[in-house]
């Protein structure tokens, strides 16, 4: 059965704007993005929202619904009370272009700063031979749809704009972990994860994991293992001594 829902939606360009109230029809089975599309069709044709697949796989419709980072297409209206006012705002960590659309180019910049996969010079493409157990750990990280909600929710940059220079954010620290765990990647990434990409800023409060729509265990499987690898490299005298005595490369 349909009902009329109350919405408060952020409207504005750049940083300036305000929350505008709407009352809009909702039908059974709909998600928040469906309701925003109905608003565009009936009341606010200039309302800007980024979307694409409507299936939780493209990562385009990231927004904040009642203050929580969510995908608009994966947030069912049935999870709200019919009398509840639903507040929809753009992602708070990134500059607003218009209404619910943010400029996420910060993330592309951070992606470019990570050196790409670097195989040994004596192994040619087509000669890679890997066991499934060697690669399945990092395959979890390949599920990332780059919705950037982990970047958005991370308090290191959400609450401290000044840290954006030094901190790559969970999505890209996970990318570094993925490459560092790869059996054929030979680039030294531990030192640079700490020094150049700000791994030390992470205080493992797990918000990135909480908001990930792909349920990737970002903190437990990428960030903490990467922190432990950095400890091997920089802070553990026994591992350092062992690597010298046994000539073991980490």
């Amino acid at each position, binding site marked *: 059965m349909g009902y009329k829902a109350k919405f408060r939606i952020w409207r504005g360009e750049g940083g300036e704007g305000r929350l505008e109230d709407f009352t809009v029809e909702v039908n059974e089975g709909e998600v928040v993005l469906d309701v925003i599309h109905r608003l565009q069709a009936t009341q606010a044709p200039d309302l800007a929202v980024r979307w694409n697949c409507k299936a939780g796989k493209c990562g385009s419709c990231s927004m904040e619904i009642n203050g929580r980072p969510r995908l608009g297409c994966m947030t069912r209206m049935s999870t709200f009370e019919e009398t509840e006012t639903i507040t929809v*705002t753009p992602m708070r960590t990134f500059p607003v272009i218009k209404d619910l659309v943010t400029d996420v180019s910060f993330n592309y910049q951070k992606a470019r700063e990570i050196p790409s996969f670097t195989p040994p010079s004596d192994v040619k493409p087509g000669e890679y031979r890997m066991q499934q157990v060697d690669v399945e750990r990092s395959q979890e990280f390949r599920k990332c749809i780059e919705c950037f909600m982990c970047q958005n929710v991370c*308090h290191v940059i959400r609450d401290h*704009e000044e840290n954006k220079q030094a901190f790559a954010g969970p999505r890209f620290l996970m990318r570094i972990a993925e490459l560092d765990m790869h059996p054929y990647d030979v680039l030294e990434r531990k030192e640079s994860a700490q020094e150049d990409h700000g791994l030390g800023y992470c205080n493992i409060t797990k918000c990135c994991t909480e908001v990930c729509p792909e349920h990737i265990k970002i903190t437990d499987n990428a960030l903490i293992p990467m922190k*432990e690898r950095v400890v091997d490299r920089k802070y553990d005298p026994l591992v350092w001594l062992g690597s010298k005595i046994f000539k073991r490369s980490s």
Partner: protein
Amino acid sequence: MTQTTAESPVRKQRAQLRVRTLRTDRWWLAPALTFAGLMSFLIYGFWAIFDKSYFVDPYIAPFSSPCLATSCPPGARFLGLAPFGDWYGLPPGLLILGLPGGFRLTCYYYRKSYYRSFWLSPPACAVAEPHGKYTGESRLPLILQNIHRYFFYGALVIGAILTYDAILALVHKPGGLGTWILIANAVLIMTYTLSCHSCRHITAGRLNHFSRHPLRYRAWTFVSKLNAKHQPLAWASMFSVMIADLYVRLVAKGVITFPFA
């Protein structure tokens, strides 16, 4: 809702929402409960360290084990030894407090819990923290959290000693309720210790070629399964050690006197 501080020029490009959060759920409940839980552990631990009723044959309270000073009753001394001699006059629990205490203090789960509940950094996801600056664990003093693995080695030793205490109690008083409380505590302490992220890294997490180290890979797989339960194990073992410790002290004080105590 509180007002945020003045916005910087760069930040002005963000949506100018002047509230700390727009969350409508009870986001404050989890940090409040965590704060209460951790505070209860700290207050109890402070009292227990200075309480002298820590031994009643064959039970020794976990907060005071191993007992390593001459001031410990002969039956309470670990393997009958008293390496700290008579010069040590402080409570015996203080001697070993640093190992399990440091292990929990630097534990990846407890870090999350006290950063959220004590330091509010952040109090909950998408709720603004109150601090003007943030450098996390990138410099002193929090960079010292990186020594967690050394506390893990120490906690393994303490876990083994608590297991030994439980086995001694089982040998001397198999039908005692205290024996089974100590056994349950030892099991929870050991599983919490082995579920540690550093343990996971040490078993095989640091390797890139699991296939070349099948035994270590199996150990890593086992620890990974435990690691997924690290948070509940942290809480369960924290309460179990408090309950076991309090039980032994109540028996030692004569408060609990029933035949199977």
